[in-house]
Structure formats: C-alpha cells, structure tokens
C-alpha cells in the first residue's frame, strides 16, 4: 500500500524541510577508523540515484527504510545483519528490532543510535534532505528505486554486492524469474482480460504501465486498462474508469485499511462498473502484491488466481 503508507506517514511526520544539512563530516572519528587500512575489502556500488556509495567492507549493520528491501535483505540471508526496522515492516524476522519510525521520515537520532554501517533508503525523485543529513552524519545511504520489476532485480544484485552475498543474490533472482515464468506459462493461451488495479478509491488512483504492479498484471495474463498513462501512479477520473469498463477490478486488501469490496460496490460511480456488479471485483493481499521485492512471483500468482478464476482447480 505504497500510497496509503505515504499518506499515513504524511500525517504523523515532520521531515526536514529547512536549510542544507551542510554540517561537514568531521567529529565522528572515534567510532571507526581502525578499518580504514583494509582498503581492499571496501565495496563500491552505484545506487539508484546515480551516486557511488562506498563501504569500508561488506555491510554488517543494516537499516532498510523500504519494507520490500527489508524483505530482500532477509531473502539474501541477512536477517541477522538488520539492526532496525520501520513501523511498516512486518514479520517474525524483524519484530524484535527497534523501530526508527516511518521509512520516509525516520527519527534520525534513533537511526544514529543504532550505528548502522548502511542505510537503505527510498529513491524519492531527488528529494535529498534525509539522505544529505545522514550522509553528513557519516552514515552511508544507498538509495533504492522500487517502481519497476527491473528495479527489483537490480536492487537484489546491488544488495548482494553490498552484503558480499552475490551467490545468494543470484539464486534469489533466478528463483523469482523461474516463479514468474511458471505463472506466465500457466496463462499461455488464456484470454487476457483488462484489469483496473485500485491503488486508492477516492480520488481514484491506479498503477501506471511503468510500475511493477502493471508488470505483474501482464505476467498474470491480464492487461492494465490504464496502460496508456504516463504517470507512475496516475489519478484517473471515475467516469474514465466507467467508460473503459475494465473486466476485472483488483483491490489490494491489507492491514492499511483499504475500502472493503462491499462498500465499493455501493459507492457512487463504482457501482456503474459491470465488473463490480457481475462479481469480477476481486481482492488480492496487499502485503504480497504491493511488495516490489523477493515475493514478486507470489504477487504474480495471487494476481493470476484473482483474474483467472477459470484456471483455478475445482
């Protein structure tokens, strides 16, 4: 629930909005300094913001501010390297960890107190206040984009290098590819229904063609009914949805409190959709489908089961 998380956070938060975090990087020499001589073990990777991030050695104390990236770290066998989590991370592997707050507006002093040697942050279209601030405090920040499936594979590869777990990264990527291929094969030859993916109901927001959600719809044997949009997460007019009459309306249902399907079926405008009247409004678990991470194949399976009921074993 990328957008819902965004909105929740925008309510609870107060992100830095003032002057440059131009503090310089002095004053933090005591904590490290011994490792400096081991230059050969250092790791350099270009992040999704185009910056080269150099670590003195493979990351051992990691805080991922992006839930899907936390999942990736765990998938690469790095659960014991995580030293913090956000309020939006779920699961047994992270629940014991201290929270830093939201992923976009973490408590900086809590982050500093965890002494991470790598923070994995959102690549937020160049909005750099948080990154600049952490960098100025001597904490390496690696920015990660999570819009498209290619972003997912790239971040798995990059994390493999940063954590010195390249083999685990290769096999995780291979497993995802195999899972996606398997879903693709299972819908070969089936009709490809048009799908409206509801990111948000009011104002209506959907997934644009350049998002992982749209790719997942394609792999699962559907067509994104708003594949012609330029924006990543476009706001679309309700009457345009009604005009296009998607064959399926897919609603992610999760802990973030998305509207229930029943309420949607009675809502003005939405009730004009044949898909809703004829029982082709389907829910998918938000926790699986909205996670551009190692569970991408599961997301594709959930999407296929939702939009291809005829393929389900009886």
């Amino acid at each position: 629930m990328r957008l819902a998380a965004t909105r929740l956070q925008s309510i609870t938060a107060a992100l830095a909005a003032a002057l440059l975090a131009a503090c310089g990087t002095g004053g933090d020499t005591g904590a490290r300094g011994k490792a400096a001589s081991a230059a050969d073990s250092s790791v350099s990777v270009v992040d999704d913001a185009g910056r080269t991030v150099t670590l003195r050695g493979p990351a051992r104390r990691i805080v991922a501010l992006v839930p899907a990236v936390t999942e990736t770290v765990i998938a690469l066998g790095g659960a014991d390297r995580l030293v913090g989590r956000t309020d939006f991370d779920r699961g047994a592997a992270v629940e014991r960890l201290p929270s830093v707050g939201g992923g976009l507006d973490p408590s900086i002093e809590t982050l500093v107190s965890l002494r991470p040697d790598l923070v994995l942050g959102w690549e937020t279209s160049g909005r750099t206040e948080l990154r600049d601030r952490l960098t100025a405090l001597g904490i390496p920040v690696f920015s990660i984009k999570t819009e498209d499936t290619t972003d997912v594979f790239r971040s798995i590869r990059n994390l493999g290098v940063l954590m010195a777990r390249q083999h685990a990264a290769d096999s995780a990527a291979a497993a995802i590819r195999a899972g996606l291929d398997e879903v693709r094969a299972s819908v070969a030859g089936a009709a490809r229904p048009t799908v409206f993916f509801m990111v948000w109901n009011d104002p209506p927001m959907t997934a644009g063609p350049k998002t992982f959600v749209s790719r997942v719809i394609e792999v699962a044997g559907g067509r994104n009914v708003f594949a012609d949009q330029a924006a990543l997460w476009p706001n679309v007019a309700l009457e345009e949805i009604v005009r296009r009459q998607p064959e399926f309306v897919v609603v992610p249902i999760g802990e973030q409190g998305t509207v229930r399907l029943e309420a949607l079926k009675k809502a003005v405008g939405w009730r004009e959709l044949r898909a809703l009247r004829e029982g082709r409004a389907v829910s998918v678990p938000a926790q699986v489908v909205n996670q551009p991470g190692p569970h991408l194949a599961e997301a594709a399976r959930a999407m296929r089961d939702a939009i291809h009921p005829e393929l389900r074993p009886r």
Partner: protein
Amino acid sequence: MRPAARLLLLASILALALLAAVRLGAVPLSLRQVLDAVRGTGDATTVVIVQRLRLPRAVLAAMVGGSLAASGATFQALLRNPLAEPYILGISGGAAVGAVFAIALLGAAASGGIVAACALAGAVLAIVLVFRIAAVAGRALDTRILLLAGVVVGAFFNACILLALTFADADAFRSAIFWMMGSFGGATWRSIGLLAAAMVPALALLMALARSLNLLSVGEETAAYLGTRVERTKLLAYGTASLLTASAVAVSGVIGFVGLVIPHVVRMLWGADHRFLLPASVLAGAAFVVLADTLARTAVAPTELPVGVVTAFVGVPFFIYLLRRRAA
C-alpha cells in the same frame, strides 16, 4: 513582580526548556551521557545525537518561537486587531508558494537550501504585493486595507498551492505537505546563523519602536498628537515584523498558534506595555516552542508529531483557561 524580575523568570524557564530539549529525545540517554556529550567527550554516537541533532534543533526552535511571538505582538498593535498574527498578511502563503513550486518544479535540484531560499523569496513577494495594494488604495497606509489586502493575497496564494499540488507527483506532494506542516528537523548551525542575522537587527528595531507601538495600539490620531511619526512607525513595524516572520518561515515552515497566542498570554498576565511585552513575548514564545518540540519528538517516539499539533493541543486549553479566568 517588577518587569526585570519577570523577564528573568521567563529567561530561566527558557533555559530549563532548552536543557529539557537536549536531555530528552527518541533515544534514551542518561544525564551523565548528555553532559559528557555536551562537553564533546564520551561515546561518539551520543556526541553526534546531542551536539548535531538535539542542540541545533532546540536553538532553532527557540529562535523561531521568539521571532513569531515578537512579530505577532507587533502585528496586533499595528493592526489593532486581536486576531492578528504573523501569518495574517499572507506571508505564510507566499512562503509556501515559493517552497511548493520549488519542490514541484525543480524536482531533483530542489535541495533544502534552495527550498528555503524560494520560501523566503515567496514571502518577500507577498510582503511587497500586500504593501503595494494597501498603499495604492489609500494615500496613507490604511491598516484596515492592509489587513484585507493580506487576507486576499493569502487566499490567492493558497489557491496557487492547491493548483501546484494537483499536478505534483507523489514524492513532490509528500515533500510539500511535510514542508507546510512545519518542522525543526532540518536544523543546522547554518540555518540558525541565517535566522540570527535577521532576528537580531529586527528585534532591536522593534524594541526601538516599542513606545510608538504603545501609542499606535491606542489609535493613530492619539499617537500623532503625542508626537509619534505614525506613517514611518507603521511602515517600519510592518516591514520589520514581516521580514522577521519570512525568515522564520523559510527555515522551519509554518508553525501555527505561537504568534497569535503568546502575546495575548503575556498581555493578560502582565499588561500591554510593548517595552515589556516584546521581550517577554520573545522569551515566552521561545520557551513554549522548545517545550512543544520536545514533546513532539518524545510523545510517540520514534515517530515525530508535527510541532504545530503540540503547540495547539497544549496552548489552546491554557489559553481558554486564561480567557475564562479573566472573564470571571
């Protein structure tokens, strides 16, 4: 209590508030650890937390609180309107337009410094615009027209913000909302230095105008009879309080409630002599905002509340209590 003793009391409260702000935060630290960190000894992580995160943040909160309270007191005298506050003449709207357009249009190039500069530019644009409208409409600067011009310009800027937000992407939308909610999270010694460069001369000038403001708040004619150069005073007070507000907004976003209520509280407790009201408002506003920000950082840590929420939640009940006590 004599005025000097009252100011001393307020200064002590401010000092205690600053100590609390450095002592408390999302990370629990002992008093010993904090004291060591202030001296620069002890654990490196603790030193970073205390010296580079908590201390600048507390100092900036104090300065913004003091600036807004002084500016609010001045506007209330100048406009002879109890509803006057630092943002009433469209300054916050202008600053927000500058910041939101920088965030929405510049994208990757909009660093914190550029957003602050654009906010300042927007605020100054609002000040000039409001002043030009008010000055054209009448020969002398009519404060009623000034007030109306300010409210109208503010409404226009708000519409501009909504327009920009409609076309902003999700990241820009979020950044803009965060900015408008106001925060001291980005405090650095650099932003403190910039605000100080505006604050020190502005407060000195307002103090020099204190006697004239006393007369002005009674009425412009009376003030003129008693030897005040009314037009010059109005112009100076408007310009100074406006620029002071603009600088505060540029470094911290819009922090509501302080500039409206702190001067009223001081007036209710100790009278309306601006020679006392102004410095007392600065100290009380500073202490109030520092305490509010400390609460905002710790109440539901590690998540931070918007400081404006805390200033209103704590300030409104206290203000209602004062109003009722005075009425009784």
